[in-house]
């Protein structure tokens, strides 16, 4: 991975730049949006794009661009925290399975089978039944969905690395499993994890949208791209614009992340090219 790789891989460049642009748009919304997002102005509702409101206004007369900025931030944060949970729990599980093998590996596989049996929507439903709706539900649901994905990717990578002679050499040098996982396994599966993380981030954005859309995720007055679509739901036959803007934003963010992920995979290690997206469903 270097600048050379970026130059030879235009889709990686486009993907990274677009992802960063969207992330920046979201981050800026913490300090500044064109209009305050909670500013309701019924008189100004359902406006089309204009110099005052670049993306128009919604059914409450709120500025769409401001909502998109703030919603993008929520979507990114929810998806990223979900991925973080997946990495924090899944990767150590996968590394342990790869380094110890035997009973540890069996246990990790069974746990990940079990988590695979709970699609994100079901987890979100269960948590909502338990604690009521909210952003945290979406984060935990996406996190739970990510745990087995990262556990499997880490285990797969660790197993491949563990057969290498340099791991045996480290054992001969008196290193234990923890030390080998840290010194040799983790650095060598890092590129695999980064690529998978990018893909999972895009799936997380989609999952957040779906969960907020059915009312299990982000709740008003906060906003997210999925929640905007939920708000537009009853009106979209008359005012399609209200659902087109957040929908397209989701599409662009996800495409940007996927381009970045594919590009990273090609650039980092040609051997990994075919591993991603195996977890694209679920």
């Amino acid at each position, binding site marked *: 991975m270097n600048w050379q790789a970026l130059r030879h891989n235009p889709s990686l460049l486009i993907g990274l730049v677009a992802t960063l642009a969207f992330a920046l748009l979201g981050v800026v919304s913490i300090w500044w949006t064109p209009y305050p997002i909670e500013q309701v102005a019924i008189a100004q509702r359902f406006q089309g794009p204009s110099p005052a409101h670049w993306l128009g206004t919604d059914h409450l007369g709120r500025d769409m661009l401001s909502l998109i900025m703030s919603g993008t931030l929520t979507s990114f944060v929810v998806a990223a925290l979900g991925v973080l949970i997946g990495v924090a729990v899944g990767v150590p599980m996968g590394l342990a399975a790869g380094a110890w093998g035997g009973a540890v590996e069996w246990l990790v596989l069974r746990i990940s089978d079990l988590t695979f049996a709970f699609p994100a929507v079901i987890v979100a439903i269960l948590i909502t039944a338990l604690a009521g709706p909210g952003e945290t539900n979406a984060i935990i649901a996406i996190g739970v969905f990510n745990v087995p994905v990262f556990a499997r990717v880490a285990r797969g990578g660790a197993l491949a690395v563990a057969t*290498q*002679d340099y791991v*045996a*050499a480290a054992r*001969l040098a*008196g290193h234990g499993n923890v030390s080998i996982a840290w010194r040799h396994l983790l*650095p060598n599966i890092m590129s695999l994890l980064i690529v998978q993380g990018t893909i999972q981030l895009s799936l997380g954005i989609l999952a957040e949208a779906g969960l907020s859309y059915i009312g299990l995720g982000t709740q008003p007055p906060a906003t997210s791209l999925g929640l905007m679509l939920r708000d537009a739901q009853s009106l979209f036959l008359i005012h399609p614009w209200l659902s087109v803007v957040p929908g397209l934003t989701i599409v662009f963010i996800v495409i940007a992340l996927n381009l970045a992920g594919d590009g990273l995979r090609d650039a980092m290690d040609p051997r990994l090219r075919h591993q991603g997206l195996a977890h694209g469903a679920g």
Partner: protein
Amino acid sequence: MALVEIDDLTIAFSGRPAVAGLTLRIDRGDRYGIIGESGSGKSLTALAIAGLLPDSSTVAGAVRFDGAPLPEDERVLARLRGKRIGMVFQEPMTALNPLMTIGEQIEEAIVLSEVPDVANLVVPDLLDEVGLSPSHVGRYPHQLSGGQRQRAMIAMALASRPELMIADEPTSALDVITQRVVLDLIAEICKRRQMTLLFISHDIRAVATLCSRVGVMQAGRMVEQGAVADVLKSPQAAYTQKLLAASRMDRRPAPVASVEEQDLLAVMGVSRVYAQGGLWPWRDPPLRAVDRVDLTIGAGECVALVGPSGCGKTTLARMIVGLDSASEGRMLLDGVPYRGRDLPPGSRAAMSLVFQDPFSSFDPRMSVGTSLAEPLHLLGVMSREERDARLREAVEAVGLDASMLTRYPHEFSGGQRQRLAIARALVTRPRVVVLDEPVSALDVSLRGDVLNLLARLRAEHGLSYLIISHDLDMVAAMADRVLVMEAGRIVEEGRPDELFARPQHSLTQALMLARLPDVA
């Protein structure tokens, strides 16, 4: 009359030539061998004749088969290949479709060749010709041994009664004894069918045994060609001379009066048992991969352990170095008893292992210096100066420069990496070094240098070696004593010259018979 004529052939990948200006002529009935090391372009040449080069290659020059240039149309070319050329590849496991039976795959070849026979009548004949029983028809590739798979590949190649057979390293994925059997089979079939053969190999002796004419390739160029007898007797090109020299394994002199009486390493009644049978472990007797082995290595001695693949020699070596634990028995290293993994750190420092594959024995994400310093961990806390001094000493001992330590493994060639692997094995100043096939992953021309290095280090540092290998010539050149292993047991033991001159056990005899005759 020429069956294959290649005129000024150049094959390039994104501008970089892999084969350059190659001219070659194979007459009908010739058995033509191409010798070269990995990356010499010998396989590409073979693929060019069959029109099977990758799409990413650019080709210049002419290839004529039976007087006519290869057809432009892909379908016509494919049918020509199917009817008139038979091909056998290196790795029979991946070269066969895992989801189809051997019979189905041979039958497909027959149908495509459009030989006017009824296919299912011919399949048993073909199997018989390559020495497989008719019951193999319904088997899948994974149900066959490596040798059987390669026989099935040969049967498939023969299905169309081809005029030319191209065999690309057909034996290098097989064990020693099977290698010889498959080579003999190819020779016999060529003779019986009066078939023209193009044989690609890195093994000069296999080519000498099988072929009538030979071409030597180096870095994409044909450096020499002619009748086998002439080229081997009086090689013209410097590279051919080097290859010939490397193929002759001269005895490396043992250090004078180095072997002491006292045993440094003793292995006593060691077994490694694996449970078999999954849910019903009592149905199958446990597999005894290593079965009550006793051996000793004296201080300064070089002992070799030879045997076919799967005989348990690697499992035994893994227990000796402490990567695996013995199920029964125990070992003594310089008086310290252990069963395997429980080898204490202090004793681990007294023993080290050099791996077979120099490419996988270094972590690609670590500088070579960090990798080399890893075993120093065993000696406890060490000052930076001391550590650097140790590394420098080890690297210089193998003939490399200490400035290389900051570089990463991909910057080194295979030969350099194997030297670095040896340096890592020396960094704790061990007394015993276990060498697992130390040169078999290296190109032939590099092997001699590495063996010389090992012999010199042994003399300089008073090291004891345990060499694990299937290569009898290398063993004869290096070892003071040879142990022959079969099915987990040591079946014969002796000095290499005596043992190889008068082998007693049937396995040793089979290994000696499988040995290809020396050239020149």
